[in-house]
């Protein structure tokens, strides 16, 4: 009979430990994406469960993080650079890393006597405007901005 009692003791202690491990494991945020080391040139979509917010910062100490309320928004647009992020609910998830790659892109179309130049990338650009081989001017174009200029050669690079 005593042996049976000790067996039940052992079973209950084992069950309690296993249940606690399961419970606290379940309470951890589930981070579906993006994966650690993710790279992109545009906005990032965060897919997390059992979390209220996502903290995003450019350093793994999260000294001044951007806080994304995942109940209101899952997508965020970040400037090019390396970021660290983690989900937070009752507990915090592990820290993951993501990279926003800079993308330099220029589009032009003829307009009247000149060309309309559009910055279609994700960074601000300096654009050198040439008329044949002569440098005419240097313009700044914020991302998404366009300007009409006279020239026939355009060279765009990051500011």
């Amino acid at each position: 009979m005593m042996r049976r009692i000790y067996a039940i003791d052992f079973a209950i202690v084992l069950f309690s430990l296993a249940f606690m491990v399961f419970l606290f494991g379940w309470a951890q945020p589930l981070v579906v994406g993006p994966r650690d080391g993710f790279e992109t040139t545009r906005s990032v979509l965060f897919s997390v469960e059992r979390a209220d917010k996502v903290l995003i910062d450019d350093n793994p100490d999260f000294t001044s993080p951007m806080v994304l309320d995942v109940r209101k928004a899952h997508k965020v647009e970040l400037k090019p650079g390396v970021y660290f992020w983690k989900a937070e609910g009752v507990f915090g998830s592990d820290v993951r890393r993501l990279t926003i790659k800079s993308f330099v892109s220029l589009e032009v179309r003829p307009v009247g006597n000149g060309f309309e130049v559009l910055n279609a990338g994700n960074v601000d650009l300096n654009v050198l405007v040439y008329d044949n081989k002569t440098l005419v001017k240097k313009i700044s174009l914020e991302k998404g901005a366009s300007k009409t200029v006279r020239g026939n050669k355009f060279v765009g690079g990051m500011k």
Partner: protein
Amino acid sequence: MRLFFVLVLAVVLTGFVSGLGVTPGRVTIDFSPNLKKSFEVEVIASPGTELSVSATGELGKYITLSSQVLKFREGESSKKFSYEINLPANLNSGNHEGNIIFLKKAEEERDGTIQATLAVATQIRVFVPYSGKEISSGLYVNQLEDGRKVQFIVQVSSIGKYDVASVRANIDVFNRLGEKVASINTGEVSLQDKKSRELTAVWEPKVPVGKYLAVATVIYDGETKRLEKEFSVGEHVLELQEVRADNFRLGEIVKFEMLVENKWNQKIDDVHLETKVFDDNREVLSHFKSSEESIGPLSKKVFTSFWDTAGFKVGRYKTEVEIDYGGNNSVRKDLEFDVRENELRVIGLGYVISESEKESNRIVFVLVVGIILLVLINLAWFLWIRKKLKAKAEK
């Protein structure tokens, strides 16, 4: 990724004739004598394009290109391109740049118009540390908790040949008269294992609303550096406290009463509220304004506006309420309207999420119930059932 680039080009080419792109736009590396390193970029262009490639700039002579021509086949809209940099034994301290330029020559269209010559550059930047111990730093100021707290952030980076063992900062705050009103210290960090760190300090201002100057003295291994930044305390002097829509009926014109508090110690004139209701794509579905009024110092006022809900359905709508005052100042609040047939719930005032809707509340509930259950099972067994069985066994 590739599909994304193709889509970008497809969208822009509906309005534009010629396009070209490269990613990344810049890579930055630390100098090492005679360093040899390869890099790869992705170039985006229309199928069938031919690009000439060249290396220019101060570091141009140290760059070896994999090819001087890059040809896109039909159906190909992005291509990888590699290059190698072979640094010399010595370079001066500071940043040095080289460019790899992808150039698309002008072509004549069928209608006789000439396209422009288009080029994009990807940059390689090499940083050579300064002699001795040196840091670069920047001071930033953030408002926290709706202006009740001010966070100072000092970003520090080691740019010298030798590591910096200890960095800290003292931040003095001055008012417009030049009087010091606060002095705060950050913690101390080391730049030995990391190149860049942030020093932060939080200040709870007990000063009047207005403009102030933060002067940070960064102290590192016996040296100092001074930074300044102007900022405002209590910028958001008007606060939206309550939004009510009594007798709400979907499909009818609804009267909104919005309570606004003036936290400043002066009267504010020309105050009005503008409300925008959006769909899921952030398109404005409805836009309505209140009348313009004044709010006395340190007091509250109700602003009335009307929303025509004809055509709206039951559901949740992202909303923005903007308090405009003093000509060109405004405070914005993002809310959500939970619209029902005879009721409107306003979500987002006071808290980012209402407490009852937090995911973590649900998880805490499950954890607490689980632990209590476990404790009860253990108590029941060890304090009661086990004792009875043991007593039975001993008989």
